[in-house]
């Protein structure tokens, strides 16, 4: 079998014309939502309402509504925060890092992944704001000059979090919006309803597809990609500092920054893969979001999953190698102690199941990859649960150990976070092009001059 290594297979299947692309991608935003869409929205917004209700009740009565107790000061609140921040990582990775590496297959999924980043960070951002018992004082976490001459504590990782997450959100949002501007213009040009036209006109910032516009746009996109790239690494690094900087055995680990980043990409890709499987099916984007693209994502999941697995193993090794009895205890306790069930859920979902992706067949079979993707997300949620809750529940003094059990409110808020995320995703699908029209046009057959010939 001879393979032409120089031949780059096209990322878009078939040979759609520019007009067809326009038609196809903007279609979901131009037709009335159908019954299925409304049912989906009803489910997600009900979950959102449940979460909001639980949150309001918590706000009214206090953190006591949750299961958190004395040794376990953080539980679902911070687990959810880290989980959602992790989900947000795929978007920026795809749009920024893969862009810089000229990975063309990203074009079909970049917009959607970026959108998910924004929504995931929005969802995540609620948790640190609400987990403090007195959220009306959240403003104190920002360094602003005040008459009390009170300043924030720059040695606290929680403060670094505030900066890291807000920067990440801002840059991701700008990046996303920048990419949307040409598409807004296309939408504006297509819009027939005055109301839509006005809105799209405002957001398209007067884009006229001129050569100058494109030049500026490309440059700006490149700069923002360069700007966002370190953020992909820094945000979860800093989130991991919340734990690594503390003195708690099981938290105080130098492996956390790379381990958290790998884990975040891992879960982020799983979530993007899961959602895209639905999107490409429902909106007939199979030729744009191709099976090849999904397979590539699965490969990344396999790679990052093994990084995470390596980190799990390395934690045990270091615990043993350190000779610290407390460290050793924490890891033995994770695997065999009171939260062993959570640990083994984590290991099987994150390390064992992704191994199936070694098989090309499974990598290309949609139902199987979907299931594994779901497992990865469950596993990654449990990873944060294991790290946070099991370490806290059995720390230095055996006298203060206690078991944490979530309450109705904890679970309600967790479901509510999914409700918020998916509600935003659903609204996004119906209002904005979920695939970048401009970028896809650039990667279809014949759009770029080539010296390889033979293909057109």
């Amino acid at each position: 079998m001879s393979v032409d290594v120089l031949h780059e297979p096209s990322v878009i299947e078939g040979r759609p014309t520019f007009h067809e692309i326009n038609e196809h991608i903007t279609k979901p935003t131009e037709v009335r939502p159908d019954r299925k869409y409304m049912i989906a929205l009803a489910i997600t917004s009900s979950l959102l309402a449940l979460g909001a209700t639980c949150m309001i009740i918590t706000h009214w009565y206090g953190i006591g509504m949750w299961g958190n107790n004395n040794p376990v000061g953080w539980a679902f609140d911070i687990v959810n925060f880290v989980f959602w921040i992790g989900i947000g990582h795929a978007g920026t990775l795809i749009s920024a890092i893969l862009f810089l590496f000229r990975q063309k297959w990203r074009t079909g999924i970049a917009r959607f992944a970026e959108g998910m980043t924004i929504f995931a960070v929005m969802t995540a951002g609620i948790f640190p704001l609400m987990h403090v018992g007195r959220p009306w004082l959240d403003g104190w976490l920002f360094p602003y000059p005040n008459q009390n001459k009170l300043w924030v504590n720059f040695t606290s990782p929680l403060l670094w979090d505030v900066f890291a997450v807000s920067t990440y959100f801002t840059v991701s949002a700008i990046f996303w919006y920048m990419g949307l501007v040409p598409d807004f213009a296309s939408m504006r040009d297509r819009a027939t309803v005055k109301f839509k036209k006005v809105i799209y006109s405002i957001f398209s910032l007067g884009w006229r597809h001129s050569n100058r516009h494109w030049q500026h746009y490309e440059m700006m996109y490149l700069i923002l990609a360069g700007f966002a790239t370190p953020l992909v690494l820094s945000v979860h690094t800093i989130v991991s500092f919340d734990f690594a900087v503390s003195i708690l055995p099981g938290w105080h680990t130098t492996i956390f920054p790379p381990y958290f980043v790998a884990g975040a990409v891992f879960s982020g890709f799983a979530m993007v893969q899961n959602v895209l499987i639905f999107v490409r099916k429902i909106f007939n984007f199979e030729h744009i979001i191709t099976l090849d693209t999904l397979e590539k994502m699965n490969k990344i999941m396999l790679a990052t999953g093994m990084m995470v697995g390596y980190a799990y193993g390395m934690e045990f090794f270091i615990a043993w190698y350190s000779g610290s009895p407390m460290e050793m205890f924490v890891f033995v306790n994770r695997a065999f102690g009171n939260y062993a069930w959570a640990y083994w859920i984590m290991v099987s979902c994150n390390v064992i199941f992704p191994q199936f992706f070694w098989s090309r067949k499974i990598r290309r079979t949609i139902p199987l990859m979907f299931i594994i993707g779901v497992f990865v997300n469950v596993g990654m949620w449990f990873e944060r649960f294991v790290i946070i809750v099991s370490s806290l529940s059995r720390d230095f003094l055996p006298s203060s150990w206690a078991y944490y059990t979530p309450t109705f409110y904890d679970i309600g808020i967790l479901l509510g976070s999914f409700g918020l995320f998916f509600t935003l995703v659903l609204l996004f699908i119906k209002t904005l092009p979920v695939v970048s029209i401009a970028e896809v046009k650039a990667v279809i057959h014949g759009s770029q001059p080539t010296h390889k010939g033979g293909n057109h």
Partner: protein
Amino acid sequence: MDQIKTLWKSAESYYDSSSTNQVTEFADSVTNEFNPDTMSGVSRRKFLALVSAGTAFAATACTNYRDKKEIVEYVNKPDSANTGLPNYYASTCTECPLACGIVIKTREGRPIKIDGNELHPINLGKTCVRGQGTILNLYDPIRLKKPSRGSKMLTEDWKTIDEELIALFKKATSDKKEIAILHNTIFSPSQKAAFNVFIAAYPTAKLYCYENFCDDSKREAFALSYSDKQSCCSSASSIPFKLNQAKVILSLESDFLGNEGHFVRNIKQFSETRDVNKLDKFSRLYVAEAGMSLTGMNSDYRLRLTPEKQLDFLLTIISAIAAKHVSKFELPLDFASKLNNYNIKKFADENGIKAQTIDYLVDDLIKNTGSSCVISGNKLPKEVHIAANLINEMIEAQNLCDCEYCQTNYCDCASDKDLTDMLGRAKAGQVAAIINFDSNPVYQLPQEFGYSEASSKTTVITLSEFNNETSSVSHFVLPINHNLESWGDANTNCSVFSLQQPVIAPLYDTRQKEAVLLIWASGKADYNDKVYLNLIKDYWQKEVFPKSGSAADFDTFWYSCLHDGVVEIKSTKCDTLKFNFDALKALDKKYEKKDFTLLINDNPFFGTGKFVGNGWLQELPHPVTKLTWDNCAMIAPATAKELGVEMGDFIEVSSGNNKLKIPAFHQPGMAEKTIAIDLGYGRKNVGEIGSEVGFDVSPFISSNGISKYIYSGVTVVKGSGHYKLATTQEHHSLDEKFVKDLHLKRGIVREGTVEEYKTTPNFLKEKFEEGNPVSIHSQVSYTGMKWAMALDMNKCVGCALCVQSCNVENNIPVVGKDQVANGREMHWMRVDRYYSGTTEEPIVSQQPINCSHCDNAPCENVCPVVATSHSPDGLNQMVYNRCVGTRYCANNCPTKVRRYNFFDFREHFAQGYYTQDSLSLLHNPEVTVRSRSVMEKCTFCIQRIMEGKQEALKAGKDFKGSDVKTACQVACPAEAISFGDVNDPESDVAKIRKHDLSYSLLDELYIKSNVHYIARLRNTNSEKNSER
């Protein structure tokens, strides 16, 4: 401005010059038309001021600070009440028959803290958890506020009731019908006199004293053993030992450190013999018991022995001592011959005890003749007490007898027969009235006595502070003054007389209970609250003053007694008691262990249930089980396994007609097939806090047992269902390998033996040799004062008094059972309890823990808003107002001493129980009441530090560390807590830090803790700990 048009775009603009070209965007400069007078008179400065004031007003209007209250100054200020300054009054706590001398701290006229009176020779400046907690009872919103009539509690005024009752009593006298007064132990001579006055006025009146839990059998045995009593001991019921001089103590099922005898004094005296700096005086404690008690937890040797075998055990010891022929005390021949059947090996084999331990015990008792003693528990039958008295004679324990302070007896307890006879007469309608004088017979008397039936045939008058089971069957319920609103006196130990004085006017329409009797006795319904005071004064003038030998006049004497709270009258030394050998006849008795044995324990916090409505005490962890808000059936883990009963599963206990369904609690160290249940729970009609808490074991009390509190042949089967028990410490199985002995492996608890310490004084430092951690940061050096604490684990017995005192001092909220079960109790101080060894023979270690105020506090650097920081004098401070509640500090605290307000607990607990008006008086005004979602923790009583500093400044003295005593330190009866300036080389804390046995927690983290511990030494023989 008139320029020539040079540019025009359209005809319109060309012609209409005014609308386009003439309007320039910016004026070139100030023109002549500018006239400052036409401008608004408000200057820029003024404008800004108005804007900022307006914003401030708007902001203020938006603020609705919920805890806002008004402070109103006195209109007529009482002389002694100075705002902001405390007053202290000496008094006597009359909540239990121990009648400790107390000092009450009042602020603005309201009592806020109680501590022991240092002048009192019995309780020596300490008081128990009940004494500390009684303030909550004073302010309890459910106190009875007005007299009432009938079961519907119709409010009535005192005068009407008085008139009615006087008429009733007069009629009873003329009809020759009995008036029965039911009361608990009398320890007040004036109260006795008041009863006498009443009985003199109404001769058919009769007084019945009873106690739900008392030392009846001990008294009886004492009376039998020493029938020819002499001199001052003629009224003595028993004589306490001077434990501070004891070298060897054998305790038989006696929790003398937990709740028996004067346990506060016992702890104090016992801990004196546990001083690592006086090793020659170091005592050895042997405990033989079936239930696990606080005393057993502190023992050097503990023998698991069912109560049925106690008599055999003592006879074995008697025989062993007699066999050595060292005692000067000769046993009668017939008795000595019976002893041949007993030998140590046989007894040890039969009961699964190491013979060597009993050998050691016998050797120790003989070797330390004259400085050893046997203490038998109140629960045990009189035969065991007689045998114990006999051993005490043989080992010359009378040397240790505290004859100066032998116990008085103002009223013999009514026998069961007296009570049933009286109730029988009542049922027949021959009793005109039953007066429950601050007693609760419906709950306290066995049901079979039929009090409830009798109550419908007579007039029941209940004098009580609170509603209780009896008040619901009473015809009249009369509210009485709280302890702190009352006059009174006490004479519990023969040479000690103490006075009780009110420190606050009655909060409600309540009356002094003795005064009520005296008014009735006077036959006229004119109340005068001085009437009882006059009687006390009278008594003191006639009885106490002459004996005191005071040179001053009575008034001076009286006021000095009132000031001191106590006066000691030195009596002549009492003669030695002579043992009466006739008593030995009782020792022929044999007890057989059949099926299960039930032990009924006196609860260390509630006594017989009077205090169940007290949230502080409900939430104080039981010293052994660490259980709150419930009692349970303590059962040996092995027995529970046989029954298939898990922790918290219900078991059904039945004996005779009595049945009780109660959750089981796996308690290491319990004798097999034995269950122990605390008395005083399962109360009804006592308000929201105390009602239906726990399970009532009192129906089991009958005359069919080995004693009133021990029953053999009890059936125990697994019941259906599971019950949630709220403990403050997770229960780990001792079998779980990888968590076993973690406290020892991690060096959290460090222990050794006296032997080890004698041979290698720095054995501990050798055993736990640590590298010297170094910091990459520059360390703050504290050159001025630096506060620190030290806790001596040899002295600490784990009584939880420090916890209670801290609760009262620092306004610690009660959170309720559900919250404790979820690990959210708010206690700033806790006593950790660890087991090592086996579940059968556990070795118990205890450790009080509060905030260590680490120099490198891990909590401080993680707070994003700097709400917790270090003071220059070494305190880790918490700024409540700045706290946003991230809980990060608590996560990073290695000793987990930080407490988070998960709710506004004052509102959350029992439907806002704490927010009721009277309870706002409870709080210490020097300590902030924390709001929701704020982190809190031990402050080293910063309010006391500040007060000490102020006092020193005022007096112009140098402020010394020893000027400050923390609340826990003051309360600790063992004097295990030292506090002070560690930079002062003369201070106790500085010395303790240099001690060979001192260590601090988690040094390897380089937190530089400021709480140091002195490692506990166990006074065992040369064998290793693990071999015990």
